[in-house]
């Protein structure tokens, strides 16, 4: 009952829908980037294809980062007690998350490009088959989402550190005498 009540909260629904939207955009842009689908779009509508070619990487990195942040917010909220505190933490986290998502995406995209320490045998991206390209793009997106999840959890921790003490339950005078 309590769960269902909580599930109806607007901020919960916002986080859930934003997560689904970020996941969909991440899947589509990653698949498109990995398969070079912009050529098909170019064939149907050249200006649109050129725009998509120039933007798909940004879509892929920002949506993966947004997904990581949103999963962190969703998980973080489950750990916070008290509806009043949770609502404030949710709203503040969504706002801070929206502010940091673009710079975080470019930072995490750079971090996800760092090699595994024993790497050396992989063929350059341009020379691999389409299946390998899809796989590489998928792992790249997953790494961005994973690193962003950690950054997102740190953000929720920071927001909770500020919000929890501000949402005071006023103690009775007796207790403070």
């Amino acid at each position: 009952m309590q769960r269902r009540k909580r599930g109806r909260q607007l901020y919960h629904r916002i986080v859930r829908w934003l997560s689904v939207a970020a996941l969909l955009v991440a899947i589509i842009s990653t698949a498109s980037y990995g398969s070079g689908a912009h050529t098909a779009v170019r064939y149907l509508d050249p200006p649109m294809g050129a725009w998509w070619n120039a933007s798909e990487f940004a879509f892929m990195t920002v949506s993966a980062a947004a997904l990581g942040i949103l999963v962190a917010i969703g998980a973080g909220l489950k750990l916070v007690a008290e509806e009043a505190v949770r609502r404030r933490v949710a709203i503040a986290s969504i706002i801070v998350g929206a502010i940091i998502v673009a710079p975080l995406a470019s930072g995490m995209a750079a971090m996800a490009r760092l090699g595994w320490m024993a790497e050396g045998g992989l063929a350059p991206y341009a020379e691999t088959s389409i299946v390998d390209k899809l796989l590489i793009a998928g792992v790249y997106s997953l790494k961005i989402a994973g690193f962003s999840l950690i950054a997102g959890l740190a953000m929720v921790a920071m927001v909770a550190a500020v919000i929890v003490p501000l949402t005071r339950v006023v103690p009775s005078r007796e207790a403070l005498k």
Partner: protein
Amino acid sequence: MSGGALDFPTMLSMRLLVLFIHVTAVIVALGGSLFSTFALTPILNSELEPVARIKVMRRVVRRLGWIVLVSLAVLVATGMMNVFYIGAISRLLMVKLVLVIIVIGLAIYQYANVGARIWQASSDGPSPGLAPLVSRFRRVGLTVGSLVLLIVYLSLGLTRVPGALSIG
């Protein structure tokens, strides 16, 4: 360092400053929790009356929560900068990051859930519901402390034994 002499340009580098802040954040987070668990709480229990003890304890829980959660955020920010300075991701780092996720989750639970409920339950002084909350707060705190110690141990290997734990 060259030939044992201090190499000042290297000693004053941005990389060392970031690592210094990273390690300082560990000291602040872990030191605060250890002091509260092993020094402050036993003394409060033995020296203060229940009403005064709870007044002090609830303030400590709040203040410590702020310190630990902010330190963890600083650790993540500086940790990511450290990764850029190292320029590679090892298997050891991945293990460390999984543990970091667990630690941050537990710390949020400890302070924004159990701690907040302690704050609420103690607003009118001692209450029967307080004791289980306090013991859960302590248990979660000890788990967080132990995991942080494990992370510190693993971190020592990040730049010292990279070959042994790399992904290949």
